[in-house]
Structure formats: C-alpha cells, structure tokens
C-alpha cells in the first residue's frame, strides 16, 4: 500500500501497532571489524526490552546507533515511525538516555545540571518537574550540592532524574544499577518499574545484572558477536536454553552456547 521507505507509512504503521522502536538489518563496521551485523528487533509501547550480552557483543554500538551518535553502515532504525537518520532532533525530544558510565558536569550543582537539561528538552514547568524528580529519587537534600560531591549511588539517581525530565516515551538505560549497593539498586529498580507502568513508557534496558532483567523485562534480546543470538520473553528464553536462570543463559551464550552443549554430551558419553 505504501512505499517501504515512506515516512508517512512508518508513522501510520507505528501508530496502528504501537510500535515505538524498530531496527532492521542493522550493520556497523569499524574498518575491518564488524561490531554489529544484521541486527533486527523491535519494541512496542509500554514494553521493557532487555538488551543483553557479554562485553563486546554489540549492545553499546546498537544503543549509540539508536541515539544517532553512531551512523550505521547499513540497515534502518525507526523510532516513533521516523528514521533516526533524518529526524534525529524530533526523536530525541521524545527519548532520553542514562548510563552509569556517563556523568553530568561535576562543577555544576545538582539543580543547575537539571535546569540546563530541562532547557535543552524544553520542559514545561521545569522547576516543579525537577522538584518532583528529586523527591522521587530521594536526593532533594542535594539540590544545591555540587554534582562532583555526590556518591556514585546519588549520581546514578541524578542521571535518572535527568533521563526522566522530559517524560520520555522511550527511555534507554545502560546499566542503571551498576555501581549501586543492593539496597539502592533495589530502590532504583522499583522506581523504574513504577514510573514505567505509570507512564506506559517503553524502556530499552541493558544490564549485566540478570536478576534486574528477569524482574523488569517483558522481553529480552541476547546479543553475541554483534548478532542477535536469542529473543523472547524471559520464560521463553529459559525454556529455549533449558536453564533455570537468565544468568545461566548469559553464561552459556557468553561461553559459546552450542560448544557447551557438545562438551556436555561429550562429558555424558565419557
């Protein structure tokens, strides 16, 4: 009915199917090295999708491509029915991102950092929104503290405040609970789930903490060597790999999957 690359077609299809994110045949080469090859997956509105895989699996490159920080070698990325390649600003206005490895300027106070990003995302009633988020993440007492003086747990919560400033429809979280103690990690996890449900937000979540993933994600995409190795709900993945936990699946995929199966058979035969 529509030409395949028509923006209008994507917008209408996205609206009809509540498709928020769609990656098709994504490939990224850095010279001779192929970081991501033939990656395709999608995320619907209100879904929490875990993007998992060992170090070097291609998760970061995939997220960077979604954010328009990296240009793909081939393939398409459509968010809200629009291609990131040409509609980056419109898309980013409705998305946000937080990573445990990316900081806010340490020489600005907590509230100042949030003021800056509220202006960049053109947040209405910014002061109220900032106060609300600071209270929600229990860091309002640090509003006038220099960001550099926060502990790593407080910094992570500040990053999440920044990521929620514009009420994003698509939130990308790169290891949000890394470097947090179990108590704070649990609080943060519960807050993310609460906000996600309240706002019916789509979340793309990467983590090495499989407990987090099992608890939060509706669907997981396992990557290995730049490819999608497995995709499905946590239950489907456990059944597919005949494992008891996602951590076991992770270890199995990270160690070569089929190879282990062969080793197990060899062990049984022996």
């Amino acid at each position, binding site marked *: 009915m529509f030409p395949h690359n028509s923006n209008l077609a994507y917008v209408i299809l996205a609206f009809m199917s509540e498709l928020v994110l769609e990656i098709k045949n994504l490939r990224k080469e*850095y*010279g001779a090295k192929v*970081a991501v090859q033939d990656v395709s997956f999608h995320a619907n509105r209100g879904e929490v999708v875990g993007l998992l895989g060992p170090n070097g699996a291609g998760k970061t*490159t995939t997220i*960077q491509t979604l*954010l*328009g*920080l*990296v*240009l793909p070698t081939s393939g398409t990325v459509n968010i809200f029915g629009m291609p990131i390649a040409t509609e*980056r*600003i*419109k898309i*980013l*206005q409705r*998305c*946000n*991102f937080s*990573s445990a490895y*990316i*900081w*806010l*300027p*340490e*020489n*600005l*106070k907590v509230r*100042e950092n949030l*003021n*800056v*990003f*509220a*202006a*960049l*995302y*053109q947040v209405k009633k910014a002061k109220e929104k900032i106060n609300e988020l600071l209270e929600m993440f229990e860091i309002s007492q640090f509003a006038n503290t220099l960001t550099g003086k926060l502990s790593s747990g407080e910094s992570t919560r500040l990053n999440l405040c*920044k990521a929620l400033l514009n009420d994003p429809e698509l939130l990308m979280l790169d290891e949000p609970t890394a470097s947090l103690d179990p108590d704070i990690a649990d609080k943060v996890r519960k807050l993310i789930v609460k906000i996600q449900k309240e706002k019916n937000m789509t979340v793309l979540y990467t983590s090495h903490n499989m407990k987090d993933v099992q608890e939060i994600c509706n669907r997981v995409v396992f990557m290995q060597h730049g490819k999608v190795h497995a995709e499905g709900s946590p239950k489907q993945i456990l059944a597919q790999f005949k494992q008891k936990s996602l951590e076991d699946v992770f270890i199995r995929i990270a160690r070569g999957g089929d190879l282990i199966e062969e080793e197990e058979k060899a062990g049984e035969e022996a």
Partner: protein
Amino acid sequence: MSLARLRGLLLRYYYCYSRSSFRILDIVFWPVMDLLIWGFLTMYMMKVNNNVPGVFTFFIGAVIMWNVLYRAQQAVSVSFLEDVWSRNFVNIFVAPVRTFEFVAATCISGLVQSVCVSIILIPLSYWFYHYNFGALGICMIPFFINLILMGWTIGLITTALIIRWGHQAEALAWAIPFLIQPICAVFYPVDVLPVWLRSIALCVPATYVFEGMRTVLKGGSFSTKDLIMSVALNMLYAFLAAMLFEYLFNEARKNGKLTKMNT
C-alpha cells in the same frame, strides 16, 4: 534553531563561569599579563631608542585586539573540551541539540568573553600607560567584528581537528592561534615578513585589521577595500570551517570517534 535550547547551553556556561574564580582568572589573567609585559617592554624601548614612531600605541593596541581574537577562539574550542573533560559530551548530543546550536552557544560565549576582556584591558591600558584606545574611533567596530569572526572560525577548525584526532590533539586548542599570530602581523607590519610569507599573510583576515589599526593610529584612514577584503575572507573561511566541522563531525559519527571522546 531553538532559542530555548540555546538558552540551556548558555546557562551551562553561565553556571560554570560564575562559580569558578579560577576560570574567570584564566580569562582575565593572561590578557592582563600580556598587557603589562608588552606595555612595560615598549616603555623601555622608547627610553632606549625613541626612533620608531608610534611603537607604543601599536603594541598596546595589538595586545588588546589580539586578545579579542584569542578569547573568541578559546571560548569555542575550550567550551567543547569542557564537555569532553567532564564526560558530559554524550549527554549533550543525546539531547535534542543541533550541532549548529552547540556551535552558536560557544560563539556567543566567545563574544561575551572578548567583550569582558576588552572592558578590562582598555581602562587598564589607560591607567598604566595613558593609552587611548578610543583613538581608533569608529574603526574599532569593524576591527572588533572581524577579529571575533576570525576567532570563531579558528575555534571551529580547532574543534573539528580535535574531534578528528581525539584527546591527543587537545593541545591544538592553544597552539593554532599562535601558529597564525606571526603571520597576521599582529605586532609588526606585513612588510617585515619575507616576500613569500607576505602573500600568505594577505590571505589572513586579521592581517588587514592589524595593518588597518596601525594606519589609523598613525593618523591615516582605514581603507574600505581592505575592510571588504577582510570581511570577505572571514565569511569564506567561516563557511569552509563550518563545512569542515560538519564533515569531520559526521565522519566521527561514522567511525565511532565521537563516542570515544567521552571516555
């Protein structure tokens, strides 16, 4: 371009500079030191040998005007580096910020810094040496605009090269202006340069400004032809610098160097 986003980027610079006395000191300290050293040196030269007409006014005027260019350049390059150093670079570029808005904010910061430095240096030069910068008259305005434009252009080129070569090229932010300084005849007339270098000097917009400044201070008038030449060259280089920046920025997005800047 969104004014709200531009305001957000400028707000960041305001918070940054209003908080840190060291940053303000860095902006003011070096130009004041330049003024003192060159001022006292020329006073001494005048005592030893008073044969060079106008040497004193040339040097002081040159120091003030060079700092206008240098501050404009530094603001563009160092503002970018600030984001790199604070690992905030990715946060800025995953926000809906156009590269044009980012560059515009650094340019405005450069303009503000240049104006502030001039506001400090002009009265200081009068206080120490009874130097009347106002002798340049209305010419000050085109001189100032041309130097700011050239400062922004050098800043943009420097930033593009830093994006291309990464952290190892950060020193370029300070080196490139001083590569241009000897060529654009800041402290001496173009005639002093070897013939082959003179033709290069005439391709630099600031050369016309510094030559024009000396002409005006000697009592002559600034040639409209030179002014047009300076503006035309500035516009051409600004356009080429914007193209280079856009090209290298997109290349960095292709080869992953942009995100490496954040590590």
